[in-house]
């Protein structure tokens, strides 16, 4: 007999019948009834009306029945909090049952009932269970602390559960230790007060103990411990080395999660060791085999492993450099595994193994899955760019593929051949003839644009280039923007190379672009060419036919600091998506101070500190990157940005989206890249470019043209303002009549990274004032004095000014208005209360800057409806001076562009509690408009306020 019979009752009046059965005298009947109720609940029927009747069955002496009733309670308590209270007594009694299974069941369930009224009753039983004699109960209670913390963090702290939890770390039972570790890690991620956060940091001593417990834990416990250990950074190289020695055996565990967590710990600790030492080399050697073995596990785990291997290969290529062949795809791999393997194959390709890789890729190009084939063809192109000695073989392979005449293969091949031309100019022109044969079959914009670029670039060698381009012109209006832009440039190139017989053609394309197109990018480019050609053809030649910088072979590498951060998250979702957790985890979690995002810098710092001899500290790489090398950004825009071809997704609509204030950063780079690299050389001629503002380091993805152009416009619009920063006026906080003679004026400042409150105290009373002390109420951002108020006794009519350093680790409570701060000041006369508004900009931290791409993706991730737009009025600031001014308040300008005299500044700021605010500042003829985006709309008004103040301050 099976349970499925319970699902069969669907008659009307069923609830009524169940009610009767639940109240039956016979035990077996009651039990059957409860099962029916649970079955109904399982299929999604609402049986909440039976709440009191089911709770009545709770005192049953049958364990199975008890479990079912508890299950019911978990599901419905939230909807009936007042009735749930009826169950509390039974819970409390069950927590003292002689049977440990029941004690554990009760404490486990009660933590899952997220009803405030019940939570209050939970503390005493939980305290007992944490000290229970049975380890099964203790391990369940440990998790319950984490549950309770999730519901009411302050209660957990007040009741001293954190200390008890910490005691469990020294428990004799490994399972209890493991669960306590898991609970502490969990709580640590969302700790609210400084005390809690401090209590939950891992000390070296503790980590040492955990590593000992590692040998005795279950597989899951090992993962908890390893993940916790990964949060700890040892202070000395020796310590790191001994930790690695103790973690290494875990690499032989059968559980993939244990292996990956161990790899994470080891990868992080390796950073602390002297690079190249014997120990590092032997450790690196040990990592390779376990990683390879992960590829024979289940497909989903393979996928996670491959995404992580992708990171590991970028961080330490030596680990897997001899294991190329394991990344050859198998015919029965799911497509997501195939694509990841292909990516890693390319990363591991070198001159030594290129022959093998090429043979494989050629096979892949004949597969059936279109996406995979495309990627394989692209991979061949990337090989050619990466390994110069193999370029010729790659080209001939591509030509073979073009001969197959398979439409999408041909198109993809043409796209990559264009890259190869760009990398090795004037070397493989002989293939152009073959390419031109396939002109008619090209129907994808990217392939068409690539072909047009090739024709334009080599116009002097293609006899019928004019005819070919003309044939494209016929359907000009129907083409995608990327193709149109390319066509325009190609025709101009052709004209400059063969001016005699192509005048008509260039006229035609210019008029198409300037008069009939409604895309502003296209129009603008048309006008620029037109004017260049009509005023100074020699200059036009210099601009349009300028030598292009070589593209680099290191394709789509992650930015080093991001890579560092992701390595600290091996095995997690962040490592799968190659995005920092702050980019996708919701604000509540991202707002924590001890959060994961800050971990990468500490790693980098630690690296620098531990081995000052090591030359390259990861984060420095970004700055060291020479602007001349444009590194290819992501696969998607790989081709687009390689050249001066504008074909990344944003290109098409960018003109329209500008007005709707969506800051498409790629499209921005398009707009900037208008003349391709021509403008670079123009800059070179025109004179020294103004110094870039420090925050505008060449972004890895952006290409050099962007910054260069930004500089031009910056230089043209105004000389950088000498304004050093912005200091607000003193505000009156406590008038003398209310302060019994004590008058307080003050303001908030941020100096360096230090938040300060400046207090000007004036004694208007007739007697001396002394014994000053200050206290803050709980507030939205946890502001609290970092040290006691130091103020000497004040004689009558005397004024004193003092600076009070603040920190933001105090108690948090959301205020209304958000930025309200209630202050109590005590002196020898009385205690005085006043409240003031904290200007939000003093809460902006120094880490508010971000990569352009991160900015863009974050902006996109925030729904459009949470955007807020306000007009700030008119000011005489130039974009540069605004940018400098705001920078001094930790508002970072990430990108800027100028279109038709409208300047757009894209800015980001990060509040001390981790909330990110993104801003778009539009400056149109002196009128400033601010659009804000954040996951926390409450902060908008404060930010707008601050912008206004800052702008007004120096106008």
């Amino acid at each position, binding site marked *: 007999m099976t349970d499925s019979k319970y699902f069969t009752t669907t008659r009307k009046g069923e609830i009524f019948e169940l009610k009767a059965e639940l109240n039956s005298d016979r035990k077996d009947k009651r039990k059957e009834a409860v099962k029916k109720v649970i079955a109904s609940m399982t299929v999604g029927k609402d049986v909440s009306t039976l709440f009191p009747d089911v709770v009545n069955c709770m005192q049953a002496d049958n364990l199975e029945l008890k479990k079912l009733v508890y299950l019911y309670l978990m599901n419905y308590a939230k909807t009936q909090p007042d009735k749930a209270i009826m169950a509390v007594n039974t819970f409390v009694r069950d927590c003292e049952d002689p049977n440990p299974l029941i004690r554990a069941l009760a404490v486990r369930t009660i933590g899952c009932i997220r009803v405030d009224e019940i939570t209050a009753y939970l503390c005493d039983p939980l305290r007992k269970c944490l000290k229970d004699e049975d380890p099964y109960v203790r391990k369940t209670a440990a998790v319950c602390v984490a549950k309770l913390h999730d519901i009411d963090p302050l209660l957990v702290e007040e009741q001293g559960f954190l200390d008890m939890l910490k005691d469990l770390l020294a428990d004799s039972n490994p399972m209890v230790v493991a669960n306590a570790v898991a609970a502490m890690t969990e709580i640590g991620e969302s700790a609210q007060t400084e005390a809690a956060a401090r209590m939950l940091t891992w000390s070296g001593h503790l980590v040492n103990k955990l590593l000992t417990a590692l040998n005795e834990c279950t597989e899951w416990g090992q993962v908890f411990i390893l993940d916790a250990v990964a949060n700890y950074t040892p202070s000395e190289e020796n310590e790191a080395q001994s930790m690695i020695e103790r973690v290494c055996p875990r690499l032989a565990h059968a559980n993939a999660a244990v292996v990956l967590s161990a790899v994470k710990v080891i990868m992080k600790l390796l950073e602390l060791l002297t690079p190249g030492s014997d120990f590092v080399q032997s450790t690196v050697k040990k990592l390779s085999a376990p990683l390879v*073995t992960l590829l024979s596990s289940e497909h989903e785990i393979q996928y996670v492993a491959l995404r992580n291997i992708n990171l590991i290969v970028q961080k330490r290529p030596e680990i897997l450099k001899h294991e190329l062949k394991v990344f050859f795809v198998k015919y029965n791999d799911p497509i997501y595994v195939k694509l990841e393997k292909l990516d890693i194959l390319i990363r591991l390709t070198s001159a030594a193994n290129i022959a*093998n890789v090429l043979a494989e890729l050629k096979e892949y190009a004949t597969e059936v899955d*279109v996406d995979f084939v495309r990627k394989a063809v692209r991979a061949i192109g990337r090989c050619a760019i990466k390994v110069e000695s193999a370029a010729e073989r790659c080209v001939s392979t591509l030509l073979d593929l073009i001969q197959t005449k398979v439409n999408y293969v041909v198109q993809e091949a043409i796209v990559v051949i264009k890259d190869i031309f760009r990398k090795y100019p004037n070397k493989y022109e002989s293939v152009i003839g073959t390419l031109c044969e396939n002109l008619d079959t090209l129907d994808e914009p990217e392939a068409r644009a690539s072909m047009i670029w090739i024709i334009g670039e080599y116009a002097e060698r293609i006899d019928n280039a004019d005819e070919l381009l003309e044939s494209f012109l016929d359907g000009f209006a129907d083409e995608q923007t990327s193709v149109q832009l390319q066509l325009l440039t190609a025709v101009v190139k052709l004209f400059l190379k063969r001016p005699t017989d192509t005048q008509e053609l260039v006229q035609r394309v210019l008029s198409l672009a300037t008069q009939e197109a409604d895309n502003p990018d296209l129009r603008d480019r048309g006008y620029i060419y037109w004017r260049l050609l009509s005023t100074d053809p020699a200059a036009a030649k210099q601009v349009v036919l300028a030598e292009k910088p070589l593209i680099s072979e290191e394709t789509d590498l992650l930015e080093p600091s991001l890579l560092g951060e992701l390595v600290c998250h091996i095995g997690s979702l962040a490592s799968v998506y190659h995005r920092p957790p702050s980019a996708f985890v919701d604000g509540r*979690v991202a707002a924590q101070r001890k959060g994961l995002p800050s971990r990468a810098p500490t790693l980098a710092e630690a690296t620098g500190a531990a081995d000052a001899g090591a030359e390259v500290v990861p984060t420095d790489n970004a700055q060291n990157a020479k602007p001349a090398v444009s590194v290819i950004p992501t696969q998607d825009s790989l081709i687009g940005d390689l050249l001066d071809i504008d074909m990344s997704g944003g290109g098409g609509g960018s003109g329209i989206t500008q007005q709707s204030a969506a800051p498409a950063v790629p499209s921005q780079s398009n707009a900037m890249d208008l003349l391709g690299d021509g403008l670079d050389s123009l800059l070179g001629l025109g004179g020294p470019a103004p110094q870039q503002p420090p925050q505008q380091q060449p972004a890895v993805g952006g290409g050099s043209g962007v910054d260069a152009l930004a500089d031009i416009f910056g230089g043209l619009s105004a000389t950088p303002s000498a304004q050093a920063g912005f200091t607000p006026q003193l505000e009156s906080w406590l008038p003398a009549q209310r302060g019994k003679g004590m008058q307080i004026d003050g303001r908030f400042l941020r100096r360096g990274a230090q938040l300060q409150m400046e207090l000007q105290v004036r004694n208007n009373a007739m007697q001396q004032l002394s014994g000053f002390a200050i206290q803050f109420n709980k507030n939205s951002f946890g502001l609290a004095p970092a040290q006691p108020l130091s103020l000497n006794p004040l004689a009558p009519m005397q004024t004193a000014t003092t600076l009070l350093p603040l920190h933001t680790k105090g108690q948090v409570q959301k205020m209304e208005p958000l930025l309200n701060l209630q202050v109590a000041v005590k002196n020898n006369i009385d205690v005085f209360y006043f409240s003031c508004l904290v200007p939000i900009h003093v809460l902006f931290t120094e880490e508010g800057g971000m990569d352009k791409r991160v900015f863009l993706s974050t902006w996109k991730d925030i729904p459009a409806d949470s955007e807020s737009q306000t007009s700030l009025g008119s000011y005489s600031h130039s974009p540069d001076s605004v940018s400098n001014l705001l920078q001094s308040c930790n508002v970072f300008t990430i990108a800027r562009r100028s279109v038709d005299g409208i300047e757009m500044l894209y800015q980001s700021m990060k509040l001390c509690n981790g909330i990110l605010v993104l801003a778009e500042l539009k400056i149109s003829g002196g009128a400033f408009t601010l659009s804000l985006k954040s996951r926390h709309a409450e902060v908008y008004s404060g930010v707008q306020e601050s912008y206004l103040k800052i702008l007004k301050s120096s106008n």
Partner: protein
Amino acid sequence: MSASAIYFLDIKGKVLISRNYRGDVPMSVIEKFMPLLMEREEDGTLQPILPCEEVYFLYIKHSNVYIVATTRKNANASLVFTFLHKVASIFIEYFKDLEEESIRDNFVIIYELLDEVMDFGFPQTTDTRILQEYITQECHKLEVAPKPPPAITNQVSWRPDGIKYRKNEVFLDVIENVNLLVSASGNVLQSEINGFINLRTYLSGMPELQLGLNDKVLFESTGRGRNKSVELEDVKFHQCVRLSRFESDRTISFVPPDGEFELMSYRLNTHVKPLIWVESVVERHAHSRVEYMVKAKSQFKRRSTANNVDIIVPVPQDVDSPKF
């Protein structure tokens, strides 16, 4: 850190049973899972992790059941996937197979199991033999109520106390899979051997076992002949093996679980000759007749024999009336 809730869905995406562990994701979010999956499948961008607004679905498919975990944190994805597979294997050991029917038939016990294997998103006890000691198909009266077996939280969490056999026996099977990647031209691109050592133990008490292998590293360190030694590329052990001991002196020492289990697996990255070499010649005759000449040649030692050899010859879908 880990899963927020676990769902079992039938092939159409209907929830068969679910368990909410953390309460931070609304349970109704699962309704978006199936449409998303179909959409991704159509686009050819299917991945084992599907993002949906702020929630992430991590799922595996087992026969006609999807097992889905949700999370909104930066969960440990490898942990979640290994856990989901583990849950599937627990169910299979409990109910023989994991499919729609068996879930419906056993929903009470499944609730019990789900309660025990994970707590607040943290995986707990997932060893079937231990679970079976206190979560059984029959219900209990409280008088004889089960206690949590000490093994759950013991150092040896995989073996209960007090096992007795009249006859103490251990059986050991070595199973090797050869994995070959051969190019169309007949070159062996890559070859590896995946081996498993399966143990069946019927031993009393808490036996300490040691297993010696002709492992190259061990032989070299003890100065024995290296003729017969084998270089194990990567070894993975069952959780009962003392890893730190193996790391230090290469001895495999362990207290085995009772009954059958996989003690270790290893990988050899050596050049293997394919055991059976198959060549085929395809000849297309007129009148839509195709002739396949398939030649199979064994390449192993004369004194060995191979049983149950299957050779699969793919033919066009519409062929009929074969003649041999």
